[in-house]
């Protein structure tokens, strides 16, 4: 083993407790809501109680005259200047894209839509003033069901569009030349399984509610926001509201979770910005939990019609998918693209010869949907992994056996799938075999057979999910070709200070991921400096000005690449200085363990920190060396990375009450090389928990009038640790080709894999009862009802 490899192993690959945690768990944090400025006003937003109504008038005179109230601003007051909240992805040329005023002007289209804002000297006064505002609403019909919304004669969400359809996007492998004719294959098949799965609407429920502070008094208007995307916020504030971009600074300080829910340009950010400019005073808006539940974008919410065709021996011959996706009342930043982010993944890990996919986006009078952990890929994985289990049952095959028959073998990579994506690497058999061993698959199958034979009140089911996902958003060229407004590159700046300490500026914007720790580990190895000597800074457009933020499991896969490149450039930049000090040719130096060594001359070396000081002093710089030691680099991925894995779940179902208990859960993930196993384990645990939550617990429910019935954590059931099984995690490791760290993404894998694993386990337990599906979330009542509908007896 060479010294260089030894060095590389010192930090990367090691469990490191997170640098961030001490400050986060002792409350020494800078959340946006902690920002307090002299003369700051507090905002409260009046939200529509109706899902669909015309605003005939707003009387804010009583509120305006309350002591402590500075102003009340309605949509009409700012109609000419407030612009429209952006949607960054035009998924089809004819996509219907109605305006989305931050403050509703004439009409509201979901319950919770902002209609007026109060600015007051304190928060309590602002809230009290909301109750004094009178709004005359003329109710309009609610549009709640996405199938009904497409029917002739349906009431319209946006009258001017003449339809509730936003777009239809289709892919056909025969037309694209990437595969055969799915319709023909289905017609000719031995076996066809047709299923309708429903992805219920869920609420991201990040821990820190959204908050925004705007200070219009400095030369650069400064915006603090609890966001995943400070760079996007700056761009769109400038692009939409007309304030020059160089006059805006956006800071995402400590951010308490996002899960995609803060991958958004929010009405609240626009409103706060407008009010601050108008009143020329700093303002703060922090939402309540109830407002977050009601008005921050929701996730999922689609109907999936899936047909899979196969030969008797289990070889799948075609897959056809039709989606109806609920957009909600408006298109937000990525609303139409979110269901489509799974468009190339419905074929999963399989070698299907023919595929057709179609997705229609539909407006309803509900809170807009948008990215939620996994964004499109969990839905795709759910559909394919559920239908593979159903096909196995139809064929009388073991579900793992059916997958083996169809998946891409290790020696077939890189493999171009029926959708045209090229998967870089993977070893599905290795991950699956490992997971089966850890779960005790064969023993559990035996126990299942015994329980079935005995007619046990508690039945056992085993759920299989063999997933892959595309992450590392994203090649800019690919994004551009699909109508996205931005690119997908990432950047890093590394600067070594005169004392040898290092500052890193990253364009990623962590909100719980632990980049400060992982990035320090990477830099420590690259520059040969101690982990503690590195400071990672992010989330401020003044300092980390180049970046595209954090979402889509992209930060390490894309930003990590840029970081390694920037470190390498720093090493190269100091090399002439080292050669000068050592009086040798730069080409004779090797950089090992933080030092430049003269090859073949033991003992002749200069550390990079010595070079940093010499460069800073600049007393004797060699030609062409500048008096500072820093470098930046960017990276635009040439392709996605494709983590994969096998998750297995054993569930006990009480057939009397319908209650599901997860007995064991095994997650074997292949995410390439790992920088910090502890952080990865945390990501997998959290992701699996969130996926289980969709499978068994969470659902945003509206009544027929469009009132959100699950507006608090009493009605919206988020599981706690007491509801979750012990999770056994393990990994296989297929390094990502072409990535300097060999790393893929892990932020969403757990969520993507776990939901179908759990539902498959529930359905597997109940197949003898005639059950072929249980709609999510598989609450006890739904399970009980499914057993009754199935006949109630094995």
């Amino acid at each position, binding site marked *: 083993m060479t010294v260089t490899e030894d060095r590389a192993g010192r930090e990367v690959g090691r469990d490191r407790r997170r640098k961030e945690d001490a400050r986060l768990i002792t409350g020494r944090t800078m959340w946006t809501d902690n920002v307090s400025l002299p003369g700051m006003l507090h905002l409260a937003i009046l939200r529509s109680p109706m899902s669909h109504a015309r605003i005939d008038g707003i009387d804010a005179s009583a509120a305006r005259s309350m002591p402590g109230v500075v102003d009340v601003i309605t949509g009409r007051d700012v109609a000419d200047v407030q612009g429209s909240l952006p949607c960054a992805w035009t998924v089809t040329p004819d996509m219907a894209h109605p305006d989305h005023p931050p403050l509703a002007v004439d009409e509201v289209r979901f319950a919770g839509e902002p209609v007026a804002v109060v600015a007051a000297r304190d*928060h*309590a006064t602002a*809230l*009290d003033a909301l109750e004094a505002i009178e709004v005359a609403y003329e109710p309009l019909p609610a549009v709640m069901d996405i199938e009904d919304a497409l029917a002739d004669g349906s009431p319209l969400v946006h009258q001017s569009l003449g339809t509730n359809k936003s777009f239809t996007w289709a892919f056909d492998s025969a037309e694209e030349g990437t595969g055969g004719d799915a319709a023909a294959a289905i017609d000719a098949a031995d076996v066809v399984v047709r299923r309708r799965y429903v992805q219920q609407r869920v609420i991201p429920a990040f821990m820190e509610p959204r908050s925004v502070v705007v200070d219009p008094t400095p030369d650069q208007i400064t915006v603090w926001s609890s966001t995943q995307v400070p760079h996007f916020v700056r761009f769109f504030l400038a692009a939409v509201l007309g304030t020059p971009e160089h006059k805006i600074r956006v800071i995402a300080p400590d951010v308490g979770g996002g899960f995609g829910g803060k991958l958004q340009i929010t009405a609240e950010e626009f409103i706060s910005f407008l009010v601050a400019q108008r009143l020329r005073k700093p303002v703060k808006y922090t939402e*309540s*939990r*109830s407002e977050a539940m009601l008005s921050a974008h929701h996730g999922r919410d689609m109907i999936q019609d899936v047909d899979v065709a196969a030969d008797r021996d289990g070889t799948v011959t075609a897959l056809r998918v039709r989606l109806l996706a609920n957009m909600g009342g408006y298109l937000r930043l990525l609303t139409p693209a979110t269901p489509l982010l799974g468009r190339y993944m419905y074929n999963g890990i399989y070698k299907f010869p023919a595929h057709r996919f179609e997705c229609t986006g539909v407006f309803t009078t509900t809170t807009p949907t948008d990215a939620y952990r996994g964004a499109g890929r969990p839905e795709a994985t759910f559909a394919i992994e559920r239908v593979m289990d159903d096909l196995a049952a139809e064929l009388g095959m073991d579900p793992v056996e059916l997958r083996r028959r169809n998946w891409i073998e290790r020696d077939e990579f890189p493999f171009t799938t029926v959708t045209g994506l090229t998967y870089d690497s993977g070893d599905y058999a290795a991950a699956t075999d490992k997971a089966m061993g850890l779960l005790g698959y064969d023993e559990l199958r035996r126990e299942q057979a015994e329980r079935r034979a005995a007619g046990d009140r508690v039945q056992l089911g085993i759920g299989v999910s063999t997933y892959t996902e595309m992450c590392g958003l994203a090649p800019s060229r690919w994004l551009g070709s699909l109508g996205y407004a931005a690119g997908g590159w990432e950047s890093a700046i590394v600067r070594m200070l005169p004392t040898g300490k290092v500052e890193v500026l990253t364009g990623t914007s962590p909100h719980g991921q632990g980049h400060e720790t992982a990035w320090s580990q990477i830099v420590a190895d690259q520059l040969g400096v101690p982990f503690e000597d590195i400071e990672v800074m992010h989330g401020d457009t003044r300092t980390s000005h180049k970046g595209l933020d954090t979402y889509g499991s992209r930060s390490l896969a894309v930003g990590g690449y840029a970081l390694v490149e920037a470190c390498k450039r720093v090493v190269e930049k100091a090399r002439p200085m080292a050669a000068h000090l050592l009086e040798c040719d730069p080409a004779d130096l090797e950089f090992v363990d933080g030092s430049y060594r003269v090859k073949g001359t033991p003992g002749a070396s200069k550390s990079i920190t010595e070079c940093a000081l010499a460069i800073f002093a600049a007393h004797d710089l060699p030609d062409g060396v500048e008096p500072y030691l820093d470098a930046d680099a960017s990276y635009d991925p040439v392709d996605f990375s494709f983590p994969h894995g096998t998750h297995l779940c054993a569930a006990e179902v009480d057939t*009397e*009450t319908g*209650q599901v208990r997860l007995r064991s859960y095994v997650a074997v993930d292949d995410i390439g090389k790992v920088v910090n196993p502890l952080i990865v384990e945390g990501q997998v645990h959290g992701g699996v928990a969130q996926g289980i939550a969709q499978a068994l*617990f969470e659902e945003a*429910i509206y009544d027929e009038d469009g009132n959100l*019935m*699950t507006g*608090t954590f*009493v*009605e919206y*059931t*988020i*599981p*706690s640790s*007491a*509801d979750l099984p012990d999770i056994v995690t393990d990994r296989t490791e297929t390094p990502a080709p072409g990535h300097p760290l060999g790393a893929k993404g892990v932020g969403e894998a757990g969520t993507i894999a776990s939901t179908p694993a759990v539902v498959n386990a529930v359905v597997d337990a109940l197949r003898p009862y005639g059950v072929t599906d249980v709609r999510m979330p598989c*609450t*006890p*009542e739904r399970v*009980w*009802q499914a057993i009754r509908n199935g006949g109630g007896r094995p």
Partner: protein
Amino acid sequence: MIPAAFDYVRAEDVRTALTALADGGEDAKVLAGGQSLIPMLRLRLAAPTLLVDVGGVGELRGVRDDGDALVIGSMTTHDELMNDALVREHAPLVAQAAATVADRQVRHVGTFGGSLAHADPAGDLPGVTLALDATFSVMGPGGARDVPASEFFVDYLTTALRPDDLLISVRVPKLPGWRTHYEKFQQAAQAWAVVGVATAVRRSNGTVDEARVALTSMGSTPVRAHTVEAALAGAPATADALAEAAGRAADGTTPMSDGIASADYRSHLARVLTRRALEAATG
């Protein structure tokens, strides 16, 4: 998430609390542990003009042995109920049910009396007091009076307490020779009961002499399943007989259909859980 304005009195003793309540009139409200009231205030679902905080009234807290009964102070917390030696010995049903309330933090702050006076039909402790035939000791401007559990719970979030009343303590009869069990069904570990069943059974040899069954979340108040109790009186303590009786658990009840569960499912659960509770209490 900021309550509407209200006045606040921190009572030193029962007398000052009663005076403050009397002065406060219809819109005064007692603040006990605040685990139900404060969320309602923050959501502005309730807007009392005066809160009388009895958190500092020491005489309302604690458990006392009173011969054939325990007297449990209204400000005794759930955590204290779970861990109190007297409660565990003489009223294990109370300790068992208290342990299922919400989470650890709530149990350390939420109180027995607060939970009973709030009278949420999905609350765990109201049904328990009904099954145990507890008696509520109430003090008002006119003096003290006792209210049996069967008359205390009047309707959804409504009790026999008047606005100027204070719940002082609850007298829980010791039930020597009885066995009890609380069977709670919930969708998540920290959720409210979808249905709960509190049972107390006295048996001799192979026969059930007497059984009491109280149901949580099967109507606008906790209710006793009298038809089950009648069917069990003198019945053999066999699985079949218990199942037969439990099959009537939903008779005469009016469970709600809501976002958590349908009335049908609640009725089904009442039957299943009653059988399980009876099996546990006779096993």
